């Protein structure tokens, strides 16, 4: 795919005119992932409804993102990919779909697609939890991994701050 500098044309299109951005009023589930210290934060909101067959679907989805071009583009593209999708299918969502849809991402930016997929998992997790429903194992595992990563980043950041503080003392 044709590139504009670092990114594919598709990435730039989503970055410049992101789809489904903004805050959602009374969402059924919210996924908040990323870390402002590292420079990428994504909030994904979902509203759950039912289709004609009575299956639960993601009726509406919106995002708010602080971050680089890739973070904004992956947020935008995931909303397209899961809108009106049955919840069951969304649960099986593979982050590679994001990269494919965008025609590729620079290697250092792949983590943005991970973040976008995580935001979706967390939003569904939040919805199911609020509904006091059983959490599928795959989702539970994803949630635990995200929590672990969050703690890891906080720990790493703390150590890094310590180094800085020691430098100040010298």
């Amino acid at each position: 795919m044709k590139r504009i500098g670092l990114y594919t044309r598709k990435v730039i299109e989503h970055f410049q005119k992101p789809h489904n951005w903004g805050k959602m009023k009374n969402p059924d589930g919210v996924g908040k992932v990323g870390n402002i210290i590292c420079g990428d934060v994504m909030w994904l909101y979902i509203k759950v409804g039912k289709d004609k067959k009575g299956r639960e679907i993601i009726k509406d989805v919106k995002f708010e993102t602080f971050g680089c071009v890739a973070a904004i583009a992956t947020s935008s593209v995931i909303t397209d990919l899961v809108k009106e999708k049955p919840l069951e299918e969304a649960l099986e969502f593979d982050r590679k779909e994001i990269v494919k849809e965008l025609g590729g991402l620079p290697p250092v930016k792949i983590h943005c697609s991970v973040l976008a997929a995580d935001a979706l998992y967390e939003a569904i997790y939040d919805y199911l939890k609020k509904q006091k429903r059983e959490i599928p194992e795959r989702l539970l595992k994803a949630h635990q991994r995200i929590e672990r990563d969050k703690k890891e980043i906080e720990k790493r950041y703390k150590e890094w701050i310590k180094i800085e503080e020691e430098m100040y003392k010298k």
Partner: protein
Amino acid sequence: MRKKIYMDYAATTPVDPRVVKAMLPYLSKKFGNTMSLHSFGQEAKQALEESREVVANLMGAKPNEIIFTSSATESNNLALKGIAFANKEKGRHIIISQIEHPCIMESARWLETQGFEVTRLKVDKYGLVDPEDVKKAIKKNTILVLIMHANNEIGTIEPIEEIGRICKERGVYFHTDAAQTFGKIPIDVNKMNIDLLTASSHKMYGPKGVAALFVREGTKIEPLIHGGGHEAGLRSSTVNVSAIVGLAKACEICKKEMKKEGQRLIKLRDKLIKGILEKIPDSHLNGHPKNRLPNNANFWFSFVEGESMVIQLDLLGIAASTGSACSSAKLEPSHVLLAIGLKPQEAHGSLRLSLGRWTTEKEIDYVLEVLPEVVKKLRKISPFKK
């Protein structure tokens, strides 16, 4: 599509056409090796020595105190490691600031693994080193103090004359990295008590691949590159004559135009700073409001990330840069912005606009017109807006 606007002169500058013209004969007709005895060699040798004089002249040095290198990074490595190795019998303590260029930070870190001790002086919120801190940090075994002339990111000009005086009193070598200032603001190595000074070429409209290191006569320094004994034995390598001729021509132009060009840039810079701070809510200036490079403006904007700003500006035809982690391989924000007290999330929202010889008022007006919209748009998508 409108003309592209380059506002990243602190990263690199185009070569001035007058410099290109001066260089060309030394790429083809006058291609000799300065070490050759025949007329080709001597013609090149003469150009080299004439260039040395011009470069020395712009900083008040003697020609034999100028060593040509391949880059400011090499000059800084030679100064730091060369002084460290030549003077380790006297002591192993080196003082730098927390906001030096990565080539100094990394060289110092490496010297620590070789048994040297490094003190990294903190800076205030503007990025200024306090000369009193230098005084306090100098110990019996201190061999070198190294403080940059002006910071490449935030543009703050350090009080190097005072620091130089302190170093002279205490008998410690003083090196300054003038990559961002040489050719832009006046430098006098004698008045400022500088023992070593790094000067860059590609930041002052000269070619890439060449730089200079001023080494005061009588300074004890070891070479890093051994070989045929070029550059008074301090930097062996066949001499890059065409690039050196280019650097000299760039110096000649800067000397002639420095005063007027400086005044012009300060006017444009201040218009840009004032305009941005007025037009964009929650915008902040990084670096000192007055003691700063004539061509540097650096900001941070709350709730937005720098790479997004840089790419959006690029799509609108404006080239700028950022200290955000997202633009770096390390995924850590700029050490300079953290050293002046910015939180990581604030450093992520930084934007540097650096002006130069071909920057016009019209370009400043265009930036002032589009940047507020860029920030506004990104804030709309950000979860952290007010």
